[in-house]
């Protein structure tokens, strides 16, 4: 909210500088976002009437004007085209300074003397753009100091009003706050009005409890004309465009008192009957924004005989609005329920200066006073006749009830950890407008803080902010609270992340929302996809059901920027709509993409330093080891759609997929414009960490020497090593401690359908040293059974 320092100073006296005021407001909890000193250097501007305009002898685009300031006449040459004889204009005479610092001197323009300059609004620092000279109202006095008269010098503060300080959304409210902060008196003059007798009919009926007070006054013989310059200026610096006197007065009171008002054209208000009621569902209203609004039955409306004429507290209707021919008006001043105004305004998408004030709560005790202050201005400035105000209210409404709280200085101090003297506490609260009971045990909240001050913590805040938060001591809690160790899952995630980073893989952090198109080839969007109702862009419109699109996008982004040998990973959340329960399912998935191995330069190393499937598989199994994962199995079918169909594996744990390893499908690579092959590892962290592994129990190991026996096999190429290994596991005697492959090759000599596999076996007993005979016997049995079971031959 913007407010004028000059305007504020009409209610309190202060010599403090703008930056001091800003500091004081900030430390008391009103956040000043900045302030602007306007018209800072302006001086020497006077008003004058253009008596005559003559052609310039030497220039077609210039004219010679004679300006009369009430005493003297000054010849000024101007290039402006909007000037006319009789117009009153601001003039800068020699010695004057304009807003941009330009000093005015006597000059000669194409051979004609010019004693100064006629000014535009831009030159006087009150507009960014202006068209021609500023033509002033006809009743502007001549020869006056225009800088003072037009309030050209001011400081405009920009302050952000937090939701609990509705009372500060006005000049009066801020002045009241500052008077407490600065400990300086506040003067709020009581409006003086003269009411005539009642001549025009008007009825007001309230049919909804969301309006505890509604006042209306008929104001007759209003002349619709521009408002005086000072009023226009105050509206302008506050960010409101002047329109006409009637509208400007309502805005002026809104800014000064924080009380939104509305003016209806009396003769366009059917039957002069005002009813405050809820809208009928489907009712329509064309509002002052010229748009047709369909109303809902939760909305509070102001209606006349023929239907809605305003959305209460939000915006008036076009039909009953003030027009150029308006003579008599009905001026509304009311209190509407904050939540109700907020709901209507946000449903209709109509946030107005009025609605933001009602939403945060206005001062119900100032409704009538504000109405009177407006009436006073209508009387003084528009020469209007005031009929008596009509007040309808419900004194038993909650908004009218005074809130009385128990005042317990000890409890207040305990909450803050302070020892403020009781007298200081009482003084501060009383200055803020709280009313203390006789025995000082109860305190009544001022009407303007009704919505905000509900209990001791609120009172504590009031005292603390005016004492200054720096007066509260700083101590560390002394209570010992036993911390719980990090949860199993977060600890395991940290382990995985550290391991991968130390392996040379870069950690990513991406948005959890992705573009639906990025799922193509990865996950078929199904009914369990979570979609955002109000995405900022299609790029981030669905909650990712899989980590791959997020990680792949970053990989592609970097490859496009010529990064090579990239390895990236992220452990992140994935999201699915739940089938039975309502709450969506979140699980944690790790995806790593690997496009290369570290750079080497020797030919021999290049040959072995390649990204192959078994390195990826090794990395996955390393991760499984890290999590103490055992008992997982691998399957090759079905292949995930995004992986190379015959270079991938899915790992299962208790029948559930716990991870995958392989190369990305070439078709997917093509879609993402990736030239190189990309290794892929995924781990379903939620599944992998579901079972917490028990602390291991020590198993005795044999101290007797072991014996190794090897088998060299010629096997059909189609026979997977996994089958061979499994068979050996099944057939082996208890003496075999370990089975491992140590050589593998295919060659022309073996033929296209064969391969050579060499497997080593470690024989060892726990209770004795095995004799050669014992080992030979067991090994021969194993070899024989193996060749019987599988189509393999010993070489």
């Amino acid at each position, binding site marked *: 909210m913007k407010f004028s320092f000059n305007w504020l100073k009409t209610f309190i006296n202060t010599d403090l500088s703008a930056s001091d005021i800003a500091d004081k407001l900030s430390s008391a909890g009103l956040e000043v976002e900045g302030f602007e000193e306007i018209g800072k250097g302006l001086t020497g501007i006077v008003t004058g009437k253009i008596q005559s305009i003559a052609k310039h002898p030497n220039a077609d685009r210039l004219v010679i004007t004679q300006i009369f300031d009430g005493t003297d006449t000054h010849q000024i040459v101007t290039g402006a085209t909007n000037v006319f004889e009789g117009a009153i204009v601001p003039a800068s005479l020699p010695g004057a300074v304009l807003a941009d610092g330009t000093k005015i001197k006597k000059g000669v323009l194409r051979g004609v003397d010019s004693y100064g300059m006629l000014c535009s609004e831009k030159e006087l620092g009150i507009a960014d753009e202006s068209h021609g000279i500023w033509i002033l109202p006809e009743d502007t006095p001549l020869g006056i100091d225009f800088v003072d008269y037009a309030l050209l010098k001011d400081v405009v503060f920009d302050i952000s009003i937090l939701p*609990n300080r509705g009372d500060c959304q006005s000049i009066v409210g801020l002045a009241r706050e500052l008077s407490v902060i600065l400990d300086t008196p506040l003067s709020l003059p009581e409006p003086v009005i003269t009411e005539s007798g009642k001549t025009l009919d008007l009825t007001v009926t309230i049919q909804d409890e969301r309006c505890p007070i509604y006042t209306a006054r008929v104001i007759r013989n209003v002349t619709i004309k521009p408002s005086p310059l000072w009023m226009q200026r105050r509206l302008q610096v506050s960010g409101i465009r002047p329109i006409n006197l009637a509208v400007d007065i309502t805005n002026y009171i809104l800014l000064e008192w924080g009380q939104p008002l509305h003016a209806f054209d009396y003769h366009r208000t059917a039957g002069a009957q005002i009813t405050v009621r809820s809208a009928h569902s489907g009712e329509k209203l064309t509002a002052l924004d010229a748009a047709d609004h369909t109303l809902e039955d939760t909305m509070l409306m102001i209606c006349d005989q023929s239907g809605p004429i305003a959305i209460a507290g939000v915006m008036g209707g076009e039909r009953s609005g003030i027009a150029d021919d308006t003579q008599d008006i009905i001026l509304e001043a009311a209190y509407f329920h904050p939540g109700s105004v907020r709901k209507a305004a946000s449903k209709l998408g109509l946030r107005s200066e009025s609605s933001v004030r009602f939403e945060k709560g206005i001062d119900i005790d100032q409704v009538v006073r504000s109405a009177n202050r407006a009436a006073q201005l209508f009387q003084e400035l528009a020469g209007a006749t005031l009929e008596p105000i009509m007040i309808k209210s419900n004194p038993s409404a909650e908004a009218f009830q005074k809130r009385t709280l128990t005042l317990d200085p000890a409890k207040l101090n305990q909450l803050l950890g302070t020892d403020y003297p009781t007298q200081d506490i009482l003084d501060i609260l009383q200055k803020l407008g709280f009313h203390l009971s006789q025995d000082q045990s109860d305190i009544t909240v001022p009407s303007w803080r009704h919505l905000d001050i509900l209990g001791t913590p609120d009172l504590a805040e009031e005292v603390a902010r005016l004492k200054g938060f720096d007066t*509260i001591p700083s*101590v560390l*809690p002394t209570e010992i609270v036993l911390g719980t160790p990090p949860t199993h899952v977060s600890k395991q995630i940290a382990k995985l992340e550290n391991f991968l*980073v130390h392996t040379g893989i870069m950690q990513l952090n991406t948005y959890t929302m992705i573009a639906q198109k990025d799922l193509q080839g990865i996950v078929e969007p199904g009914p369990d996809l*979570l979609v955002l109702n109000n995405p*900022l862009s299609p790029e981030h419109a669905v909650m990712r059901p899989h980590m791959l699109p997020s990680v792949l996008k970053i990989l592609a982004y*970097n490859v496009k920027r010529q990064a090579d040998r990239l390895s*990236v990973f992220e452990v992140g959340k994935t999201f699915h709509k739940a089938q039975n329960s309502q709450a969506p399912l979140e699980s944690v998935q790790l995806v790593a993409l690997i496009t290369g191995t570290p*750079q080497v330069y020797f030919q021999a190393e290049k040959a072995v330093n390649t990204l192959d499937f078994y390195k990826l598989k090794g990395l996955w199994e390393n991760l499984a080891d890290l999590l103490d994962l055992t008992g997982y199995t691998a399957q090759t079918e079905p292949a995930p759609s995004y992986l190379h169909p015959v270079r991938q594996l899915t790992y299962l744990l208790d029948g559930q997929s716990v991870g995958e390893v392989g190369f990305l499908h070439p078709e997917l690579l093509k879609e993402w414009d990736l030239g190189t092959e990309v290794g892929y590892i995924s781990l379903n962290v939620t599944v992998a960490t579901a079972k917490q592994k028990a602390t291991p129990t020590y198993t005795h190991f044999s101290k007797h020497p072991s014996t190794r026996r090897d088998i060299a096999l010629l096997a059909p190429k189609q026979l997977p090593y996994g089958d061979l290994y499994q068979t050996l596991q099944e057939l082996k005697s208890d003496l075999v401690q370990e089975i491992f492959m140590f050589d593998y090759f295919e060659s022309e000599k073996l033929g296209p359908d064969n391969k050579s596999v060499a497997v080593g076996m470690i024989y060892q007993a726990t209770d004795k040293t095995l004799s050669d005979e014992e080992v030979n016997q067991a090994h021969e049995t194993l070899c024989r059974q193996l060749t019987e079971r599988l189509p393999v031959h010993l070489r």
Partner: protein
Amino acid sequence: MQSLLDALHSDALNELTSIRQLSDLDSLKTLYLGKKGKLTDILQGLGKVSAEERPRLGQIANTIKTDLLTRLEQKRDELQKQEWAVQLQKEAIDTSLPAHRLAIGKHHPINKTIDDVVDIFTRLGFSVETGPDIESDYYNFEALNIPSDHPARDMHDTFYLNTGYLLRTHTSPVQIRTMEVQQPPVKIIVPGKVYRCDADVSHSPVFHQVEGLYVSKNVTFSQLKGTLEHFLRALFGPEKSVRFRPSYFPFTEPSTEVDVACVNCGGNGCNVCKHTGWLEILGAGLVNRNVLKAVNLDPDVYTGFAFGMGIERIAMLRYGISDIRLFYENDYRFLKQF
């Protein structure tokens, strides 16, 4: 005979000096000291000398033998060393060729900053808790004293899902979730992703917060001040000035915003701090009574403090990053710097 021995000694020494190879050394040894060597030859004539002369000459011969053996061994060592040197010289490599290092892996600066922040609090006895990113209106707003028609909802531009759920706008729902299942004292620190419909150089629709909550008996605002001052000085340096300003949050009362002296200019005023000398880092306050009531705690018995901070902002200040979007572009050239 002595002259024969002396001649043999000097001949042998002369030949030894000129030897260049280990194999020649062995032949030399055989030639002079072998069973059929020159020394043996001379000593065969020992029988012809007088019995008085014999021991003296024998001793001279022995001394010569010992001397030659010692010198032969010295020569052997010398030659062996030379041979190693020649051999190893052939194995010379260019040690200035580039190193074979593992690829560079780095933690993401946001994750790193979260870890550092959380560490400071766990040392103060806070336990880490987490919660879902997708929340209900109840946990994100209602239970935190933000009813549906409350103007404070304007402080949260919320993303809604097709299921009626929403993306949490802060990590505060975890306060409620924790207090629902855990009796005081509750002392938790909550890192996580949060979401707001807002995007520019200093706002990202997805960002990270760390939330803290301490609820027990007799928790005070002055303890909140002490805890946060400790934290900010642990993070930004022990001399950092810290300022508490009154503010408003629906879930705390009294509420405060906490500033630290600008990390860029030290408090003199610059572009980073918008010429105020201060940087807003944290929002905090005493837990609102309505929040305690929402989890069935008696606000007359229990009090608490809560605080929250944006991790991106802290990371931007720490690393001198001016555009928040860099964190989520995940450009390799950016990531490898941390």
